[in-house]
């Protein structure tokens, strides 16, 4: 008898808890995922508020995790379940191929003129099977940071090829160490085994004319002498001008090493500029930014294309309003505001000549060329298999960099692996 009562008690407690936890139903409104907390979200919020006021449609902001892998996993979970919880997704430049099936086509919603105002590479990146699945929002590209004060001190100029950079770095590093700064190194980059390494390695390979791992026609091109030359060169630096710890660095660790004055050169994204020149930075005012070096003299300079776009879920309950919001957020006015207030690199190339934008971001003059010619990763062609391609690529490169395996056999094995699941180049 007592047990019966006891059980009923338990039951009611659970039901009560259950009911307390029910979410309240919401009236029709949009939900957008545009960044985690912090500056990104703030600026997104102010843009959305302006649109909301204009159209009268309420918008909720969903904050997503900072780490892009966590974000992708979450998006996949929601889209795979055909959820209508989020209408607009901010997607990374390598995700269109993976998520294309679940996103609306903008081709019919946006005029050709509007499309042509964006950077070609960014638009091409978002086209999957002739469908434009996302509108570019802001872009990014790898750049070379250098210690202008040290170059001046030793009378050296900014290097234009990788080999040049290697020798300049060695000279300065040795001289600095000789004069007491024993923890100085030549070059730091993102060498950890993750997507960032793919970005770095693509820059090396492409700048030597070695292709982009998988060509736009689907062919696996990584196993060629130029790519080999590139990777061998960078790998030879590990331990000599590149600290071995670099093999576990991502963006912030590299910035930390450079910002405390321990490296002469660094490869990173433009975001680091403001931080390097902030209060308390050891290298404040001593840093310069330049396009990454090329392989041969007068050869192509490659920067990996980064950035984010906005896409609308195919399961959205309010697609018309969602598309309208996306077009507003990617409009010239809004991108200009974001460039001025938050230094987000616009995807509309006209803005790089805009006086107000340049006044706040003088570096945009130099960055324009970088972004216009940025090299995209093979995400478009490899589609849903991109993550696998990238993982195999970064693993092969990491083995070569750490000296575990020579680059030659490593690249050969990589080629075999990629070809085996490339479905004959059709991916």
């Amino acid at each position: 008898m007592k047990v019966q009562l006891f059980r009923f008690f338990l039951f009611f407690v659970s039901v009560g808890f259950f009911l307390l936890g029910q979410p309240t139903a919401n009236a029709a409104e949009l939900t957008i995922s545009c960044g985690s907390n912090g500056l990104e979200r703030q600026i997104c919020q102010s843009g959305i508020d302006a649109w909301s006021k204009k159209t009268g449609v309420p918008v909720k902001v969903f904050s997503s995790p900072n780490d892009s892998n966590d974000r992708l996993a979450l998006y996949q979970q929601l889209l795979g379940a055909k959820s209508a919880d989020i209408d607009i997704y901010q997607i990374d430049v390598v995700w269109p191929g993976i998520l294309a099936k679940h996103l609306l086509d903008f081709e019919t919603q946006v005029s050709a003129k509007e499309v042509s105002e964006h950077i070609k590479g960014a638009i091409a990146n978002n086209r999957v099977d002739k469908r434009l699945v996302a509108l570019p929002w802001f872009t990014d590209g790898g750049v070379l940071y250098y210690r202008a004060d040290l170059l001046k001190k030793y009378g050296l100029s900014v290097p234009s090829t990788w080999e040049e950079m290697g020798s300049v770095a060695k000279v300065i590093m040795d001289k600095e160490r000789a004069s007491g700064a024993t923890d100085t190194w030549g070059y730091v980059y993102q060498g950890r085994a993750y997507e960032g390494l793919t970005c770095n390695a693509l820059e090396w390979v492409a700048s030597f004319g070695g292709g982009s791992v998988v060509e736009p026609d689907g062919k696996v091109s990584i196993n060629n002498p130029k790519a080999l030359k590139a990777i061998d060169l960078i790998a030879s630096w590990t331990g000599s001008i590149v600290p071995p710890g670099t093999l576990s660095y991502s963006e912030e660790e590299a910035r930390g090493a450079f910002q405390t004055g321990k490296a002469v050169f660094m490869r990173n994204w433009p975001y680091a500029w403001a931080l390097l020149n902030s209060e308390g930075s050891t290298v404040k005012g001593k840093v310069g930014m330049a396009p990454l070096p090329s392989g041969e003299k007068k050869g192509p300079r490659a920067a990996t294309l980064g950035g984010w776009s906005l896409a609308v879920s195919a399961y959205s309950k309010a697609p018309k309003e969602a598309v309208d919001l996306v077009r507003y957020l990617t409009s010239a006015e809004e991108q200009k505001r974001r460039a001025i207030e938050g230094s987000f690199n616009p995807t509309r190339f006209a803005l790089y000549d805009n006086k107000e934008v340049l006044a706040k971001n003088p570096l945009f003059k130099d960055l324009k060329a970088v972004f216009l010619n940025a090299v995209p990763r093979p995400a478009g062609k490899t589609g849903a298999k991109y993550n696998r391609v990238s993982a195999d690529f970064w693993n092969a490169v990491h083995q070569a960099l750490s000296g575990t395996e020579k680059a030659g056999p490593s690249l050969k094995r990589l080629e075999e692996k990629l070809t085996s699941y490339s479905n004959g180049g059709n991916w």
Partner: protein
Amino acid sequence: MKWVGKIAFYFLVTLIVFYAVFPFYWAVVTSLKNGADLFKVEWIPTSPTLVNYRSILTTDSFLQSVLNSVLVAGATSLFALLIAILSSYSLSRVRFRGRSLVLLTILSVSMFPQIAVLSGMFELIRWLGLYNTLSGLTFCYMALVLPFTVWVMRGFMKSIPKELEEAAILDGCGPTRIVFQVFFPLMKPALATTGLLAFIAAWNEFLFALTFTLSSDKRTVPVAIAMLSGGSQFELPWGNIMAASVIVTLPLIGLVLIFQKHIVSGLTSGAVKG
């Protein structure tokens, strides 16, 4: 001679405390730094600042996430303890066919990597309408916490002498009374220990908390911290993250200090003879 032993003992204690606490001390030190100082190694911060704490405490819904974590972890450990003490009685004091199989089945739930159940659970939660609710999260945490609570409690129950139970049976106690009036008081240290471990397991859990919640007012602490970002996608606001960790660890330490007495109250000999 005796004091040599005493000194060695206290030295050992100090070493243990250092190893356990130093990273936390480091977290506190880091949370008091800002900007470029974060990249410098300083044993005591040269210019401490509370700006990180201010920033965290004014971030919307951070304090809410602490409350959510407390609710979810509390409910998880409470329900788990309740259910587990019943089950562990069955599994330790009663002989029946299939007992080993049941034990192994319960254990086998803990043999799968968490991601294996993620998709299936996601579907289940949505189907039950518990998506984006704290109760949904609590429900899922049962799968994580029940196996070890049941096994641990069972282990402790086994060591209680059978004479106590036999006396209770003769007195006419039904099984519920045996569990709650005879065993329960004797198991207090085990309950406090297991409850604390279950609480912390639920507190630390990230994957389910991230996947099964949508709005920021339903987030728990590990997820809220994963949301912290700086001026761009790449920047990691390290000072803020450390400040958040400190804020989040303090209630747990408080909890431990409160429940300490129960964790280490010993079983006196009187219980057996009485």
